[in-house]
Every structure is written in C-alpha cells, then in structure tokens.
C-alpha cells in the first residue's frame, strides 16, 4: 500500500507533469494550477497522504468557486510518485496565485501543498515570500539543499501534521453533521407530540428555541466524542464508551445550562455521542456505510444492558430506563444501542432516504421516518407518559396506518399531533432515533 520510490521515478514523474502542464496550456490558452504534495523521503503516497491531497483539492476548488473563477478542465494522478492535480482556471494568473498562495500559507496542511500557478505564457508565477522549512522555519530551499534535517525527522513532522489536520477535519465534520441532524429532527413539522416549528407538542417547558440552544451547546461534545473514539480506536470498543462517559455527563450539564435547566437532548447525548465515538474509531471512508457505523456503535455499547440494568428492581431503579426494565423488561436506549439501533437501519433510515430521493420534503420524509420508528420501538418516553399498554396500542395503530400509506399526508400527521397532545404523549425516544437517521443520511452524502 505504501511503496517507496527511487530518484529516477520522482524525476520522471516531474518531467511528465511539466509535459502535461505544457500540453494543457497549449490546448486551452489559460493559466493552470499544478497541485502536488510536498513530501520528503522515498514514500510519496499513502492513504494518509492521499486524504491530505483530497482535502487540499477540496479547499482549492471551493476557494476558486468562491472567487468566481471557473475551472475549465481538471485531471488527477494517483501514483506511487504521489498525488497530483492539474486545474485549468479561467482568470488572470495573478488572481489565481493570490488564492493558492493564501491556501499554502494559511490552510492547516498548507505547508504540505505545492500549488504552482503557470501562466498562459508557460511561466511559473513566483511567490512573494520564499517557503519556510516545516521543521525550523528557515527558507525551505536552503534546508532542503543542505539536508539540514534527516528524512526521518521530516517524515515524522509531515505525519504529525497530516494526522492532526485530518483528525481535526473528521471531528469537525462529524460534530457539524451531528448538530445539523439534531436541528433537522426538531424542525421536522408536523410531528406527533414533539416540539416542532408549529407547536411545543406535549411539552410545556421547552420550545424550538430550547432545542436550537441545546444543539449548539452540544457541538463541542460531539467533536470530543470523535476525538476520543480516534484516540481509543486500538482498544476494545467498550473502552471508548468508558472514556466518553464523563464527557457525556458534562454535555448534559452544558445542555441544561443552555436551555435554562430543561432536558431537551438527554437521549441524544447518549446515542449521538456513542455514534460520534464510533465514527472516531472508524476510518473516514467507512462513514458512508450505515451498517459499519452502527455495528461499531453496537460494539461500543456491548454489555451495557447487563452492566446497568441487570439486577435492578422497581425499588432500586434510579432512572426511568431502569424502572421500565424492572417493570416490563424494556431495555430502552441501551438495548437499542447494544443491538446497533436495528430500527434505525431497518425502518427509519430507509424510509427517510427513500422519501427524500422520491422528492418528498424533509418534513414529509422526516415525519414518515419518525412514525416508522415509533411503530417499531418500545419508546420509553411513550411508556413514561402513557403507560405500557397505551404505548402498545398506539404503535399498532400507527403500524396499520403506515401499511396503508407509508408517507402519511400532512393533515394525517397533524391530527396525530393533536391526539398526542390531548393525551399528553411524546415519542422522545423515537425522536432521538430520527436524529440518528438524519446523521447517517448526512454522513452518506458528505464528501471527503
């Protein structure tokens, strides 16, 4: 996977690249960006280096787009001699150079990027300032020429830089999507008994603003979960859950502080935090596979039902989840997590994604997914408010309703909302599962 190259291969690759540059300039008569990675030593490509390159390519393309510069043609090479990209840009070369220069100077991996700009006349534009050595900060070409630093030292510094930047990007991306998932969940309207954009459902102490404050407050927690997952990735999965526990408690504190003491996202702190930890344990490439993500989540939660519920009696139960286990044997969110959230995979996510791809709005697809989850989950919030029997009746009723119409009309959901409010019912557990569905959907859509 990570092959070494010798000098002749490197020199040949460089000549070939310049040959392609000249051919493209001749063909298009426009400036071009030649992007390659600045990697010392005989290993010029690896999964880590490739991801660094892709991050740089994304930065380059989005920045050119932001400044209104059209990329007329692009091509990419992924060889043992390294990753390279050529981008023909329809703009004055000086403008392009200002953008690539800023990326080289300011992006987290900028020091590893070589983004040369070659004008339509074939001349390479020079940087205003010489590049600095990534070890000592002296002009790079002097350190390179004098071999001031050993290859091992340079490789170490490069690897650290890549790992740090890519782990940060992973954690930030996951946290952003997790927060987005919580916000999408609360915004799905109408939803039976839950806070949405129209009403507060069966809740008196919270509204959509409480949820927005809470979701924003949880962003750093989700980032922490991914980082802890990454750090404990080589340990058995349940170790990651143990390492997350204190941060989960603190996240609940942050939630209460943000909402003025209301429990908006307690379930999400657990289940979304767990999922973010699993993302940290996995490679970014696996994030687009819901089964892989949920399997890892399940591995982390392994043993938690046994540990936290077994032996609990009605008298010793300290949480609602423990009481329902003692009374009815319902394992709640811990049981769901341990099984890898099977209703998410079997009902919620397929309904959500099929709906969206059929052109349903997020409201329609989201409500249908919520109802599908509700029909197939022993939702402890429903049990807490309506009792076990009533919860069962409602599930059966909704299941029958979905059999007739898997994507119920807005009016139907609205009637259900009114009925839930009349009975003071709220499917909070299913709402947390809906957030997971949104998250898995966003992960599938997110590009590296």
């Amino acid at each position, binding site marked *: 996977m990570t092959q070494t190259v010798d*000098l*002749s291969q490197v*020199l040949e690759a*460089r*000549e070939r*690249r*310049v040959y392609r540059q000249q051919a493209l300039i001749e063909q298009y008569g426009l400036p071009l960006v030649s992007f390659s990675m600045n990697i010392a030593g005989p290993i010029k490509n690896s999964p880590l280096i490739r991801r660094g390159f892709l991050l740089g390519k994304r930065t380059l393309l989005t920045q050119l787009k932001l400044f209104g510069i059209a990329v007329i043609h692009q091509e990419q090479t992924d060889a043992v001699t390294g990753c390279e990209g050529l981008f023909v840009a329809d703009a004055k070369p000086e403008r392009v150079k200002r953008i690539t220069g800023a990326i080289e100077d300011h992006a987290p991996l900028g020091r590893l990027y*070589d983004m*040369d700009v070659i004008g339509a006349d074939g001349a*390479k534009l020079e940087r205003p300032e010489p*590049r600095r050595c990534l070890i000592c900060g002296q002009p*790079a*070409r*002097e350190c*390179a*020429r*004098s*071999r001031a630093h050993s290859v091992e030292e340079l490789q170490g510094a490069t690897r650290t830089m890549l790992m740090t930047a890519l782990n940060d990007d992973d954690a930030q991306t996951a946290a952003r999507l997790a927060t987005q998932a919580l916000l999408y969940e609360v915004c799905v309207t109408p939803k039976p008994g839950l806070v949405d954009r129209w009403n507060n459902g069966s809740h008196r102490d919270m509204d959509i603003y409480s949820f927005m404050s809470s979701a924003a407050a949880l962003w750093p927690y989700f980032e922490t979960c991914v980082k802890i997952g990454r750090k404990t990735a080589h340990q058995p999965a349940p170790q990651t859950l143990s390492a997350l526990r204190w941060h989960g408690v603190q996240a609940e504190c942050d939630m209460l502080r943000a909402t003025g003491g209301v429990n908006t996202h307690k379930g999400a702190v657990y289940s979304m935090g767990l999922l973010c930890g699993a993302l940290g344990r996995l490679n970014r490439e696996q994030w687009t596979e819901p089964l892989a993500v949920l399997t890892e989540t399940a591995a982390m939660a392994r043993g938690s039902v046994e540990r936290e519920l077994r032996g609990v009696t009605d008298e010793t139960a300290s949480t609602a989840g423990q009481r329902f286990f003692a009374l009815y044997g319902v394992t709640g969110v811990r049981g769901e997590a341990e099984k890898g959230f099977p209703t998410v995979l079997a009902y919620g996510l397929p309904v959500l994604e099929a709906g969206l791809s059929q052109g349903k709005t997020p409201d329609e697809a989201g409500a249908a997914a919520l109802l599908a989850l509700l029909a197939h989950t022993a939702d402890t919030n429903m049990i807490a408010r309506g009792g076990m029997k009533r919860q069962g009746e409602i599930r059966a009723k909704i299941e029958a309703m979905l059999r007739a119409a898997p994507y119920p009309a807005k009016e139907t959901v609205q009637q259900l909302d009114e009925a839930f409010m009349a009975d003071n019912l709220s499917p909070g557990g299913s709402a947390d599962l809906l957030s997971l569905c949104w998250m898995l959907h966003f992960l599938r859509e997110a590009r590296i």
Partner: protein
Amino acid sequence: MEIKQPAVAGTLESSDCMVTVEPGQGEIELDLDSVVIRQYGRQIRKVIHETLDRLDVKNARVTVVDKGALDCTIKARVECAVYRSNGIKDNLPWGGVIK
C-alpha cells in the same frame, strides 16, 4: 560522448533543475543560474563538471537553471540531457554507465 544535437532534461519545479546541452565550440561552456548560487554555486558547478567528465563530454554548451536541486538530482538531469542529445530517449540507463 559527443553532444550531437540540443537536448533538455529536468523541470523548473522546486528542488529540481533544468539542464540544456548544445554542441559546443571546442570546450565546456557552463552557464549556471541557481536560487542557492551564493551558498552552493561552486558545489553545483563541480557536480556538473564531474558528471560531464565521467560521460567523456569535452565539447558542449551547458545551461543549468537550478531551483534548489540536490547533487544527485543535478547529476541525473545532466546525464539525461546528454543521453537525449545522443538520441537515447527511453529507458535511460540511470546510473548505469556512470557510477
């Protein structure tokens, strides 16, 4: 080796150099431009002359534009330019003749 026709090897990318060889007027005429000429000009000239010597090139006009290449790169680019001048385009015997 004789320099029969003009030939080029290398690029103007950083840590590389571009070497042009042309038929000379009875001697080695070297034109060097380097981003590190103050610190390494003498060393670069030495590497170029040694490489030409080993290839038995006695009569050539050699132009080198250096962007901070290491000695091994300079040597390889000079060799390549000389071989190309002799019509050898593919499978260049890197380090073959010259130890």
